[in-house]
């Protein structure tokens, strides 16, 4: 598929999907309450999905296995601690990027 066309399709599909999700219980299921098991499961969507997204960006996976020796691993660990303590995007970015640049400079 043509790259521009694919991007357009992704924008329209994700835009519609997100809007319909936001509208779900406000408009379509307004008369219903959420099933308790679904409500319980939804609480863990961010923790599970965001972690599944984060880990491959920090740990590179080669055919031989996962590469935990990358300087991105300690930098991300430090950023995680800062994020846990401060809840601030800017502080997390500062700590993580700073640590990565320092480690890359030390190895060079």
């Amino acid at each position, binding site marked *: 598929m043509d790259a521009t066309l694919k991007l357009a*399709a992704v924008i329209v599909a994700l835009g519609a999907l997100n809007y319909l999700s936001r509208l779900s219980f406000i408009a379509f299921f307004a008369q219903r309450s959420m099933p308790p098991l679904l409500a319980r499961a939804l609480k863990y969507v961010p923790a599970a999905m965001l972690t599944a997204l984060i880990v*491959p960006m920090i740990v590179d996976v080669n055919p031989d296995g996962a590469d935990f020796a990358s300087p991105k691993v300690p930098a991300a660990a430090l950023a995680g601690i800062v994020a846990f303590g401060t809840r601030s995007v800017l502080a997390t970015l500062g700590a993580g990027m700073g640590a990565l640049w320092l480690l890359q400079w030390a190895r060079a």
Partner: protein
Amino acid sequence: MPVTEAPTFGAAPARPAHAMRHIVASRDFREGFVEMLPVAISLLPFGVVCGVGAAAAGAGWLGSLGLSALVFSGSAQIVATQLLVANAPLAVIVLTAAILGLRLLMYSAAMAPLVRPLSRRWQRAIAFALSDQLFAAAVTRFARDDDRLGAARHFAGCGACLWITWQAACMAGFLAGNVIPAAWSLDFAVPLCFLALVAPLFRDAPAVLAAVAAGIAVLALAHLPMKLDLIAAGLIGIAMGTAADLARDRWMRR
């Protein structure tokens, strides 16, 4: 005290353009807009990173703007651009974003009773902007106020503030992403932004279990075709968190 029927506020106005001006000029709208500014500013770096991601995916300025304007969710925008770079099929991109977007059902269900007295038009408008930060800002106002139309205008002000600053941040990131050299490792900012969102959740034990399970699963399943590893790992993590939550409830009830 006389019992009145729950009235419907903000019924379809005769002249929508005039009504729109009326909303924007209202004090509630202005209060919402100003109240949201600190939150919007704190999200600027995340927006910039999303814009950088769009540039890395080879999007034009229109594609980048379309993504941030219509999807209006940082994590979904990042998923879309990352999976586009990895050349995942359209269906996998949509499915991954759908699972990530499940959390929006939670906000929708929580908002639903608050917006029930409002007109359809208001409900649809509020749903468009419903996001993690707006939900938090709106719930306090809707809970405090009996004036539902005022709370809706306040929400519109919050939403406008966040939406406008988000577009500006994403566009700034898109422009910067095209000039910043690769040696700066700016792509590392993406997992850092997500870490800022996810690490504060680790005060809750089932959430930690959900994250650990998803993290191990995504590495173990890295060789699944078509980038299906994200979907599989996400579902495993959600199942793990839910099971741990159920087990904790059983334990507490004993």
